[in-house]
């Protein structure tokens, strides 16, 4: 994204850092959309910091049951040594919430990286080469896509870990289960883009010059087909958290002695709720909500900014805002939505 060749940049030169994906959208946004984007970025930032510095932030270890004063005790109400209380298993709630951020981040990173690589590679190849390979892959991807993703993740989790696991195999099996669900989504988006780009004039000219298929796919098609990825990334990162938590909630997650995982804690708190013990469920659950909220706010704002019909524009007509590279409208700012429909030639 950042390494656009200088030829493709329009004359008013913009500093390189202002063209970075998120920075660019931040500068482009106004009003409510800007507020949502900033709020989302702050929440995601805090999540990343907590995940990175968990060992220093958490008062106790994630599987610690006692300290110098003896056992923590089960289901202690918030206050005193344990600000957020202790769980039914005798763990410190605050520590498990903080350590849980680290587990969640690891799973997101592994899952999204794996599915982006596999999904994009399959999508570009399938869309560009076409023929029977394309048809088979599309039918399979559609079948998998129509499948309830949680059930698919459960099946994957059973296969990979047989149901129970330590830290790395747990993280890896959760991540792969999520990847299986995501590949068809990336595949479909990238394939559709590839099929469209394939018939563009610049791909034709590259073929005429005698460029190899691999080079066309990697340089011409891939670069242009991946514009919508930051958006899918944020949406899938939040889905990764859901899937991880859901697997944990159903008892197919990571063992409490290997890592802290919010879904597992919620599962164990199920019986607490009936007896009015709220702190074991409310805090890990809120952690999930906050992280997903942050990522969704960022994703939603990026989506709206990329869609010219939904983007709120600066009202001031003094300096026209630079158009997004994702915009279909050539140049400057346009005030009314009707103008855009006209420019795009859409019905």
């Amino acid at each position, binding site marked *: 994204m950042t390494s656009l060749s200088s030829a493709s940049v329009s004359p008013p030169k913009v500093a390189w850092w202002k063209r970075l994906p998120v920075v660019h959208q931040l500068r482009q946004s106004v009003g409510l959309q800007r507020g949502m984007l900033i709020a989302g970025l702050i929440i995601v930032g805090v999540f990343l910091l907590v995940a990175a510095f968990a060992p220093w932030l958490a008062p106790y270890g994630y599987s610690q049951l006692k300290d110098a004063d003896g056992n923590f005790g089960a289901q202690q109400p918030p206050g005193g040594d344990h600000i957020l209380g202790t769980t039914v298993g005798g763990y410190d709630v605050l520590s498990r919430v903080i350590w849980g951020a680290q587990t969640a981040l690891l799973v997101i990173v592994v899952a999204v990286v794996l599915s982006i690589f596999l999904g994009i590679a399959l999508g570009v190849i399938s869309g560009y080469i076409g023929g029977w390979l394309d048809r088979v892959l599309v039918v399979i991807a559609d079948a998998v896509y129509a499948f309830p993703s949680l059930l698919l993740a459960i099946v994957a989790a059973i296969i990979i870990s047989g149901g129970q696991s330590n830290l790395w195999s747990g993280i890896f099996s959760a991540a792969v289960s999520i990847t299986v669900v995501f590949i068809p989504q990336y595949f479909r988006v990238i394939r559709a883009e590839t099929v469209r780009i394939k018939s563009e004039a610049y791909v034709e000219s590259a073929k005429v010059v005698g460029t190899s298929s691999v080079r066309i796919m990697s340089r011409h098609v891939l670069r242009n087909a991946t514009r919508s990825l930051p958006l899918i990334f944020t949406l899938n990162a939040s889905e990764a958290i859901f899937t991880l938590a859901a697997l944990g909630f159903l008892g197919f997650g990571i063992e409490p002695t290997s890592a802290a995982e919010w879904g597992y804690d*919620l599962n164990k*708190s*199920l019986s607490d709720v009936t007896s009015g013990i709220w702190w074991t469920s409310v805090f890990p659950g809120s952690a999930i909500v906050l992280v997903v909220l942050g990522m969704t706010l960022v994703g939603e704002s990026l989506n709206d900014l990329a869609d010219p019909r939904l983007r709120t524009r600066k009202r001031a007509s003094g300096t026209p805002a630079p158009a997004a590279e994702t915009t279909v409208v050539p140049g400057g700012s346009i005030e009314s939505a009707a103008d855009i429909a006209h420019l795009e030639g859409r019905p």
Partner: protein
Amino acid sequence: MTTTAPAAASASDAPHTPPSAGGASSSSKGKKAPNALGRYIIVRFLLIIPTVFILVSMVFLLMRVIGDPITAALGGRLTADQLAERIHQAGYDRPVFVQYFEYLGQVFTGNFGNSITDGRPIVEILATYGPATFELAFYALTVALVVGIPLGMLAAYFRDRWPDAFLRIIAILWYATPVFFAGLLLKLVFSVWLGWLPVAGRASTRVELNLSSMENGTGIYLLDAIRIGNSAAVVDVLQHAVLPGIALGLLTAGVFLRLVRTNVIGTLSMDYIDAARSRGVSEFRLVRHHAFKPALIPIITVIGLQIAVLLGGAVLTETTFEWKGLGFQLTQYLTARDFVAVQGIVALLAVIVALTNFVVDIIAALIDPRVRY
């Protein structure tokens, strides 16, 4: 085969513009319009077969990768000899592809085998617990549509003003809350703290006994209670349905809210809306009548996609509320490591999803002729 592509593309991301390829081909077949729909239905129906086939094969092969189901379920409890005997009896020591073709043949005749832990036929399990899941999904879909569509239109009407901002944040919050956490919170507030609604289950013990012992009952408690004509039972069943229905329904309501908002705003920028506006049609009427109907088609398509989400969510909601349906049962079998039962339930859910998607696509084609190809 290629016909899946445009349908897939139009279903995936809230289609603002109908696929142009579909429009072009349907206009070329425009002369024989009555046949076109019939042909579309047949082609679309035939497409279910490869989908279901792929899903059933995938589940079977994946589940067999980890070894035979008998060792998984009874591994620690029997001696090696007893295990080998049981495995031989069930035929799990034969080559995988022999088992695979046998399984396909059984599935074709509607036989999914018996569960390992309690020896019940999978078909019987599905018939017993399926209606409960269907009932829950129905409540949830009702909540989602009743809440999501009007709020989405409201958000579009107040576009970029504070009610819109408020509604969008609500929708994102609904989306960001996992169903099981939403369920826990609802339980905590309305059942434990306020004591207004029951904590768990599908009905009180007495009503449940009454309903489950009923002759030729549907298994859908609300219907059965109405058929008995016992108003206290109807109230009891509905009271138990409120919290699970809301927990699962709000998840989807947020999706509908955002979808309706985006699509109504999208259609509001079209020429015919400008024309109507210049004729002096009120802004509210524009949203309610002119822009809403075209926005309905993506909603119908998304309902189809949401069925998969609802069934996945039902597994979690049922576990949270001890709602004895397929999802609750699935969790029980998962914990018992009874993978034959898991395989049967998962395969059935896959077939249901494929069938609902078919019905939804047909409805979308009936409403909008451009969808056909």
